[in-house]
């Protein structure tokens, strides 16, 4: 059951910035979106620098790319996509006053996120074992820097999900709860969004 008939419907304009047009509202609050857009712009610059550098080293970049195991990255992509789905469903469940489902979905999301971290650790370890580090060549400098900074974002996002989880379990329907939940959710989706570009950029382009 998505919601109970006795729980009052959550006022959508109670949290987030409401606008005068019905159905239009900003999830969370402006600050998180400034962070999200700023982060996306920063990564856009990284992506550009990578592509530019690739231009002068096409053969070496391609050779190095072949040493990457695309399987790791495909699994990671599916893990993050799934975790984003769980988070999005959790936010909707919370808004529908489904007290038990929302936190459970956040746990599923976090498990996927932890899976991503574990998978990355295995992938990095595999590279280090073969003597490949970020000083090996320019491609690997980008590989470890871009995926490393992204990994840092994943870890921050997981900490955020812990707060989201805590708030989804709160029985009181205060607007502040939804705010934290939406802020954490937005950051997590951004982490997924960035990986959606990192994956083909590093692993698939030839």
């Amino acid at each position, binding site marked *: 059951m*998505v919601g109970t008939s006795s729980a009052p419907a959550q006022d959508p304009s109670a949290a987030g910035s409401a606008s005068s047009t019905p159905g239009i509202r*900003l*999830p969370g609050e402006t600050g998180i979106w400034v962070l999200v857009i700023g982060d996306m712009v920063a990564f856009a610059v990284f992506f550009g620098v990578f*592509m530019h550098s690739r231009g002068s080293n096409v053969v070496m970049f391609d050779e190095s790319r072949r040493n990457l195991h695309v399987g790791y990255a495909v699994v990671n992509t599916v893990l993050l996509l799934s975790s984003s789905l769980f988070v999005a469903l959790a936010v909707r*469940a919370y808004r529908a006053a489904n007290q038990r489902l929302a936190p459970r979905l956040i746990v599923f999301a976090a498990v996927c996120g932890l899976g991503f971290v574990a998978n990355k650790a295995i992938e990095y370890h595999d590279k280090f074992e073969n003597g490949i580090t970020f000083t090996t060549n320019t491609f690997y400098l980008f590989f470890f820097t871009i995926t490393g900074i992204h990994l840092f974002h994943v870890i921050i996002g997981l900490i955020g999900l812990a707060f989201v989880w805590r708030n989804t379990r709160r029985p009181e329907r205060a607007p502040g709860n939804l705010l934290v939940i939406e802020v954490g959710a*937005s950051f997590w989706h951004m982490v997924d969004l960035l990986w*959606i570009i990192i994956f*083909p950029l590093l692993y698939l*382009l030839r």
Partner: protein
Amino acid sequence: MEQLFRQRITLVWAGLVLATLLSWQLSSESAFDSTLARALTTFAILGVAMIKVRYVGLDFMEIRHSPRALRIIFDVWMVAVYTELVVLYILG
């Protein structure tokens, strides 16, 4: 519970996973014997990535129902990144 999973975003997720597998397939070793083939494949793979980004933004991040300013910023970012990557790839 089933009602929740029958939501649009679950369908979006399925599409995103399929698109991921499609990109993987596009990039796998096939008859890549021309610069043009490689370039077109690159544009396609990056294009698929942008479409995925768009769905994550519009549906998961709920930008679809956000104030127009955010929707515009998001669209501009996607176009700018796609253009930047394609142009830099061509120039390389």
